[in-house]
């Protein structure tokens, strides 16, 4: 079912609002209108609870003059609400009136949603959570707790700006999560897994049970874990969510706002070798159905596939409207915002290391001693210094070319530039996973992906002495 981009505010009203926003000057004005609907529920102690539905609508208006952005947001999409936002954004400007260009609608095609989640009765969603609960508990008596979550969210957006752009998008995301606590005597471990996409309920119509079983498997495996090793050693990083390592240590540093403030270790390195030639990487907001995909970004620019590292060489930064204007280039469609209550900033969409030629088995077999980080609980980076830290949620020791025992409580720390250069093998077993990325107080859905990747040397902060 192809959907039409919605029109939350008609072009005549949008032009009126833009005209009003430019009443006291400004070289650029924009109105971003949004309607949000969502439903979440969870299962805990085998009971459906926290059933919540939400409905919000509102708009954000910004005016740019000189180096300053004037922004106001309001709840509601009535003409009076939009006028109030325009007047508040323009309030601090003192220049001559400007006229916006006539709006020209950009044809956009929202991603295909086969089964609208809001058309599926809530009881089926509850039944799905009960199924996850049973599947996880079916992995044995050591599974002592299961928490499952279901979330559907729809964001309809319309954006119009004084350059004449008028575009819309209709985004529906669906996601489930599974968290397991396993216990054996005094040893307690947790395991988690998620499944999400920029798709409708069709995502869950095939059996979603395996994610509950996988979460249980992780927690059960960790019951046998010993302490993690400490020190510098080769690290093999798992596929899929392992890509969060690249997202954090390189992706954020390529966002043009960090670059332009000199607050990125990748500033001034365009065209330079930043990784071994075996590594190429992309940011791609157009991958069909992927969690981080949209038809347009939150400034109305079409999303695109951007080659950021080509065979080890840094080839592109990620731009929104303002940072692109400053560098005299075109936006790469990375202007994203959490909601109409936020200003757009350069953000990743789906970021991934392209598949390589190595197999995970080879990467591991070549190591005398190393660490195998299958999955992360999360990570954090300071783009200015390049220092990063990752919590490993599932990790194993590698000894004499073999994965030997699971380890608990490992943390990977290091510096982006060194760690990226140290990637000496990229796997052919590519897949994507979902994440929620925070930056500047805004959370947006992002995809991360890769096959297995090996970092020649990295600091593992473990608990073994």
């Amino acid at each position, binding site marked *: 079912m192809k959907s039409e981009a919605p029109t939350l505010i008609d072009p005549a009203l949008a032009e009126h609002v833009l005209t009003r926003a430019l009443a006291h000057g400004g070289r650029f004005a924009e109105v971003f209108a949004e309607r949000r609907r969502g439903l979440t529920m969870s299962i805990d102690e085998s009971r459906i609870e926290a059933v919540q*539905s939400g*409905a*919000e609508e509102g708009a954000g208006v910004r005016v740019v003059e000189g180096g300053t952005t004037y922004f106001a947001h309001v709840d509601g999409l009535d003409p009076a609400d939009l006028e109030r936002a325009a007047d*508040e954004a323009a309030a601090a400007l003192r220049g001559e009136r400007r006229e916006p260009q006539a709006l020209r609608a950009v044809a956009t095609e929202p991603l295909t949603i086969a089964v609208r989640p809001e058309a599926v009765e809530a009881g089926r969603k509850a039944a799905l959570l009960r199924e996850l609960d049973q599947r996880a508990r079916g992995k044995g008596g050591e599974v002592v707790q299961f928490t499952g979550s279901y979330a559907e969210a729809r964001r309809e957006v319309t954006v119009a700006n004084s350059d004449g752009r008028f575009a819309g998008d209709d985004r529906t995301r669906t996601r489930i999560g599974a968290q397991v606590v396993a216990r054996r005597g005094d040893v307690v471990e947790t395991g988690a897994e998620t499944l999400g996409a920029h798709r409708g309920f069709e995502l869950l119509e095939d059996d979603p049970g395996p994610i509950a079983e996988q979460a249980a498997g992780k927690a059960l495996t960790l019951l046998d874990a010993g302490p993690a090793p400490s020190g510098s050693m080769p690290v093999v990083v798992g596929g899929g969510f392992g890509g969060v390592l690249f997202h954090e240590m390189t992706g954020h540093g390529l966002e043009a706002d960090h670059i332009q403030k000199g607050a990125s270790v990748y500033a001034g390195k365009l065209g330079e070798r930043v990784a071994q030639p075996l590594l190429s990487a992309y940011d791609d907001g157009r991958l069909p159905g992927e969690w981080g995909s949209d038809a347009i970004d939150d400034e109305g620019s079409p999303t695109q596939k951007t080659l950021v590292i080509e065979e080890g060489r840094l080839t592109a930064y990620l731009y929104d409207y303002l940072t692109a204007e400053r560098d005299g280039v075109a936006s790469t469609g990375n202007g994203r915002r959490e909601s109409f209550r936020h200003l757009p900033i350069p953000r990743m969409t789906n970021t991934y290391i392209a598949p390589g030629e190595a197999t995970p088995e080879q990467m591991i077999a070549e190591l005398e001693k190393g660490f195998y980080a299958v999955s992360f609980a999360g*990570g*954090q980076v300071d783009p*200015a210094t390049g220092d990063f830290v990752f919590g490993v949620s599932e990790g194993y020791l590698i000894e004499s070319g073999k994965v030997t025992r699971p380890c608990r409580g490992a943390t990977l720390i290091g510096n982006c530039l060194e760690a990226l250069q140290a990637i000496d093998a990229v796997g052919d077993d590519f897949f994507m996973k979902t994440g929620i990325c925070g930056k500047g107080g805004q959370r947006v859905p992002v995809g991360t992906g890769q096959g297995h990747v090996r970092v020649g040397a990295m600091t593992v902060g473990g608990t073994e002495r």
Partner: protein
Amino acid sequence: MSGLAETAGSAVEAALEAGAGAAEAYAVRDSGREVRVHGGEVESLTAATEAGVGVRAWIGHRVGYAYCTDLSAAGVTAIAGRAVEAARVADPDDFAAPPEPAVAAGLVGLSDPSVAAWSTAEVADLALAVERTALDADARIAGVEQAVYADSAEQVAIASSTGVAGEYESSSCYAYLQALAAGDGARETGLGFGLARGPAGLDPTAIGVEGAARALAMIGAGKPESRACPVVLDPTVAASFAGLIGGAIAASAVQRGRSPFAGRLDQEVASEAFVLHDDGLDPEGPGSAPFDGEGVPRRRTALIEGGRLRTYLYDTYTAHRGGERSTGNASRHGYRSLPSVSTSNLVVGGGEASLGELLVAAGEGIYVTDVAGLHSGVNPVTGVFSVGASGRAIRGGELAEPVREFTIAGELVAMLGAVRAAGADSRWVPFGGSVCTPPLLIGEMSVSGS
């Protein structure tokens, strides 16, 4: 007060009409502004207004929730109906029931008139002064990534079919910057911040100086040796750990067996040097209010005193379940979320030692000024943690060279048992929720570096 209480009241009525046995509505109106500056210029200026209502509906022991931004009669009626529909999907839970009304004393000092009185130009000047102070502090300050000022004035009203009714207003503001220092072929960042009820309560010079000092202190940092050694946590780091402790003391975590404090009530869980209160009434605490997210009066509660765990934190649901009374710790993230148990303001008891005396007591160790990866490096069920850290070496009882790219690891309860002293100088920190804490000396922690 601007009809917010009436909105809440009519939402409750509408939910009852839609079939709820009991209902509660929580309505919020908020106006705020934010100024971001960079390079001596205002980079962005935001004016925000927001209003919404959330409705909790009970049908027997089933609960549902719905919220919206449309406060018109039609909007409120629609959302009340959705809350009832949501309740029909939920499974019954014997302990789910609406809170009973209780009289909350008024709390003065939550609103500062300077939020309304200061013009946008004046608060922009404050943010610019924060940035300028840092830039002028030292030639090695290469820039300021961002300096930010933000404030908000909020009105809250609550009403329920069981007779809960209340409203209050409060204001808050903060300013911070991330300073960049260059030296030794690398860049270092340093955070400076301040919190207050209004801009008149902020000291832009102190904030700028702090950011610059933190960045400068890190120039030339290397990895410390892996070892077990005494560690002094500065207040920002102590606050992050206190926040983890506060989360683990929430009855919701304890009752579901997801806390290292489960089954340890009245037992020894810390050294006597570590004292922890939850205080929802201190006017200086950003989390203070006359009542919590379900209308129960806020209060001051001793959590860890004399080395023992004195109580868990409760909302109405967990109190019913635990056979206790609510401690007034139902928290909400505005009208968009169901109330859940969380700390209001955590207050770590101060000791008598200056920072210098703590360093002397540490002798040889590490002064930790920043931790990263707390959300991924801590197992909330077991309390086992391994987090990234940076700071300064302590040599001969004094601060020595900067250190970075190491982890500190341990287990939360064991760490509390190893607290040897709390410093005398406390400050409010927006990490770990809202925490007022001095620096803490930990007798021994596992440090993993080179």
